């Protein structure tokens, strides 16, 4: 087990980073989780992104197709369920980035609208 001894002031001051909390700046260290955090990106309605990891079972559209909002465009099998993916908006399909049998993680871009 670790020995109890005072922290060396020199060690404390190594590699400090700045953290701004409500306008005041503090010198401190970052933990792994904070260093690895992702910046938030505004969701884009023109992009259809997988909400769950799984396998593509049906692709019902192709580039250039005109679809209406809520039209069935893909079937994504995940957790032993066939999940229907609906069009998020009415419009023209710009690109289809998946094909039947593709396995993908959550957050994969599958279809783009124009």
């Amino acid at each position: 087990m670790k020995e109890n001894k005072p922290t060396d002031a020199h060690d404390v001051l190594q590699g400090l980073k700045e953290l701004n909390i409500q306008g005041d700046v503090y010198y401190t260290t970052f933990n792994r989780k904070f260093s690895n955090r992702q910046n938030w990106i505004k969701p884009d309605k023109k992009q259809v992104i997988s909400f769950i990891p799984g396998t593509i079972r049906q692709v019902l559209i192709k580039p250039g197709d005109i679809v209406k909002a809520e039209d069935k465009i893909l079937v994504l099998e995940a957790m032993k369920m066939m999940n229907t993916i609906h069009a998020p908006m009415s419009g023209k399909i710009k690109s289809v980035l998946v094909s039947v049998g593709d396995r993908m993680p959550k957050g994969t871009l599958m279809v783009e609208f124009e």
Partner: protein
Amino acid sequence: MALKKQIQELHKRREEVRMGGGEKAIEKQEAMGKMTARNRILALLDTDSFQEYDMFVQHEARDFDMAKKVLHGDGVIIGTGTISGQPVCIFAQDFTVAGGSLGLMHSRKITKIMDHSLKMKVPLIGINDSGGARIQEGVNSLAGYGEIFFRNTLASGVIPQISVILGPCAGGAVYSPALTDFVFVVENISKMFITGPEVIKTVLGEEISMEDLGGARVHSEITGNAHFFAENEPDCFDQIKKLLSYIPANNDRKAAKCSAKPPRAGYKIGEIVPDDPSQPYDVRDVIRAIADESDFFEIQENWAANLVIGFGRMNGETCGFVCNQPLVLAGVLDVDSSDKAARFIRYCDAFNIPIITLVDLPGYLPGVDQEHAGVIRHGAKILYAYSEASVPKLTVILRKAYGGGYIAMGSRHLRADFVFAWPTAEVAVMGPEGAANIIFRKEITEAENPEEMRQQKVKEYKEKFANPYVAASRGYIDSVIAPEETRNILLHAIEVSGEKAVSLPRKKHGIPPF
């Protein structure tokens, strides 16, 4: 003569069971760097104190050719013994017997010793080393897990429950440790996950090793599922023994008192905290400057390190320390540190351990990730835990105590019994820069030299509010004290709080923001 023969037969039977899954399986276990279940129990308990029960239990499974299989002890060893003279109940899953898989009789042995520990009001230690449910026993295995979880819940807050993960602990099995008070893990040996690398690969196509998915380091740094990390099994057992020295055997008692010892001379409490509130220091040095023998037993050291929790003694009496750590993320409260603090406060409250809170934080961590991760409901857990706790609550404000963070960290308003502050304390709605920018926005923007005006207003704000005396003038702080007075004043506070009793409104239970 017949009796002698029968006794010989008994010894023979015992010997067979003690060999668990047989020599080959034991060799395999040891080749993995793991001790056998029996040796683990013997290493943890006082010499010659272990008494085993249910040695000759056999499974009753008939399907899938199971009838032909003899599984000694059905893959688990249960019994009672002592650690440093204190009685405990213990079970250890035996990986050499059918991979320590949990069948009906295996679970009945565990629940038998659990029932015993709850009835006798002694700590329960569970050593987990199991491949999971025994598939051949079907729904009986699931029933077994359910019976264990139910008892974990009943025993929660009545007796200390300790889980030691010394092998795989996967699927449903993980929920028993998760329901217990303290989880111990060992590097390269502990593996905990709901779904393993194989399933993840099949379903998601993601490849990850068991170690990276649910190894000891992952659970002690990233998930917070583990409370103590050790590099090997003997170290882990030492940690368990040390933990047990700090806590009482059950919730009717107080922890055993040790003889009083002063902090070591190496800790100069007046020289640890820098005056400049933007500069960091290690708050554990302050704890060690206050606690007996400068001994601080930290819990969840590597997870949410922006808040420090653990046990120390004050004149021989166990206290729980909850402290902001300016060295990591400036000591902010966030989702993880709120969870960490709240659970520990409830632990101390359940087991009659006074809580000492050391405050130095700039507030809550800003960020979309925090807001979307639910920092509102997680942060609320600290408020709930402090408000509800009826053990003595003593708070020392070392430096910054801004905004919501001030309220959350054991403030008078959540019924701290005593609130002390060092002369360096700053109790305010926010830091001087931020506050000046808001309060004097008009003056600053309309000034000929805005930067000069801003500096001046920051200085004014600092002089007026960056001190403990505004809060002291309202009675929110009981005493402003010099750092050197801290230990003695805390000892006095603990002494006069010895018979503390509070009455709370009658209720079945509250609805904490889980």
